[in-house]
């Protein structure tokens, strides 16, 4: 399984996105330490994949961070920390790192690297560096693989989503769910999460 290069809609070609997903990580502590120490060889967004529900969820955070970079609106150190912060439903940057960033306990890891004109990075170099430093099994960055990693209870807690049990829950009478009920439910969950992320900081 190799690093994936992703082009997002409305992102200039000069800003290329690289993504790699790993499972059974053995050296999360070491990787976490490199971020804390500010090791410049580790300019990545290191995301705990257990709080990511789908590709779209991750891509939405990347898009927001890159758009904020282009608009000179970064709230954190760089575009990579901003990707982690962009997953957050609120403005607490430190909390967003704790919730979505790598921790010593992380076992599934999503790595994102944005190549920019001021700090270009080639796919081969990223892949060979990751192969060297990440002690884990590289897997397909796909919805299916992510789903198996997701801690849904935690995700719902972070985004304060218990819509299916609430009194005003999306009732059966207005939402016409087909036979594929669970996939409809997770699409709805994804939509609500994207909304929370988009509204982050919209406090006035």
């Amino acid at each position, binding site marked *: 399984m190799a690093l994936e290069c992703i*082009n*997002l*809609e*409305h*992102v*200039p*070609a000069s800003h290329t996105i690289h993504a790699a997903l790993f499972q059974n990580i053995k050296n999360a502590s070491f990787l976490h330490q490199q971020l804390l120490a500010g090791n410049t060889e580790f300019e990545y967004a290191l995301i705990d994949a257990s709080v990511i529900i789908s590709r*779209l969820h991750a*891509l*939405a955070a990347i*898009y*927001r961070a890159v*758009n904020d970079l282009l*608009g000179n*609106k970064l709230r954190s150190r760089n575009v990579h920390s901003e990707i982690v912060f962009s997953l957050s439903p609120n403005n607490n940057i430190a909390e967003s790192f704790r919730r979505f960033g790598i921790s010593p306990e992380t076992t599934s890891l999503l790595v994102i690297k944005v190549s920019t004109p001021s700090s270009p990075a080639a796919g081969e170099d990223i892949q060979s560096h990751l192969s060297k430093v990440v002690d884990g099994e590289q897997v397909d960055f796909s919805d299916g693989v992510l789903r198996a990693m997701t801690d849904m209870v935690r995700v719902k807690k972070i985004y304060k*989503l218990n*819509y299916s049990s*609430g009194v*005003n*829950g*999306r*009732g059966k*009478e*207005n*939402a*016409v769910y*087909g036979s594929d009920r669970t996939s409809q439910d997770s699409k709805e969950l994804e*939509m*609500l999460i*994207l*909304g*929370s992320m*988009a*509204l982050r900081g*919209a406090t*006035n």
Partner: protein
Amino acid sequence: MEVDTSLSQSSSPVPLPLILQRPSVPAILIAQGAEALLFRSTYLLPSLPCALKYRPSKPYRHPTLDLRLTKHRILSEARVLTKCRREGVPVPGVYALDEGAGWMMIEWVDGEVVRIRLNEWLSRRAQEGVPQGVEDGKLVGLMRRIGSAVGRMHGVGVVHGDLTTSNLMLRPVPAEGVNGGGMLDGEIVLIDFGLASQSTQDEDRAVDLYVLERAFGSTHSKAESLFTEVLGAYEKSFKGANIVLKKLEEVRMRGRKRSMLG
């Protein structure tokens, strides 16, 4: 160059937001209102359509005030949409926004606005010579679905502020399909929350209903007689709806007086 050239060549120049000048599937201008432009564009992937609502700056307004107003409107619309969606009101979900740049991307809703569907249906029936009141089942069903959707919105504490049949969409339901007599089928989706606010005032709710009733009266008079179906379904949709219907009578009275004076 990345942008649909038909836009830049159209008679009145359409101000494109910076975001639509970046590489993507060409955007299509869908509607141009007084305050906002609505494009069909894409979110993250070429295969994921979105509606991009753009509020261009107004040259006649003071720049600082203009920016503040634009930001406020984008944020307030996005906030109401996410609140509705979380609470199960059928509205487009919010994907992304950049209030400083004046745009917001929301879920693309397939289908057509109720105004157009209803007019098509009414004119087809007129052509076929079906008398009013006969085989109205489909229309009654539509009116009831509208009533429940509006009631659901009011029930979560949101008033729309511009409730017309152009701001209600009919999204086709996969199993049914649009053709085959199902012109009025589909799920109601409420759109355009540019004038919406969070309110639980019966007066505000009643005005929403009054505006909708007038919209039916002025553009689809043949459907107006069935507005009671909207109100019937509305009444059952949340606790306290009956008080709103009382209030609606007052609002109607005021409206009538005003038109007699005017």
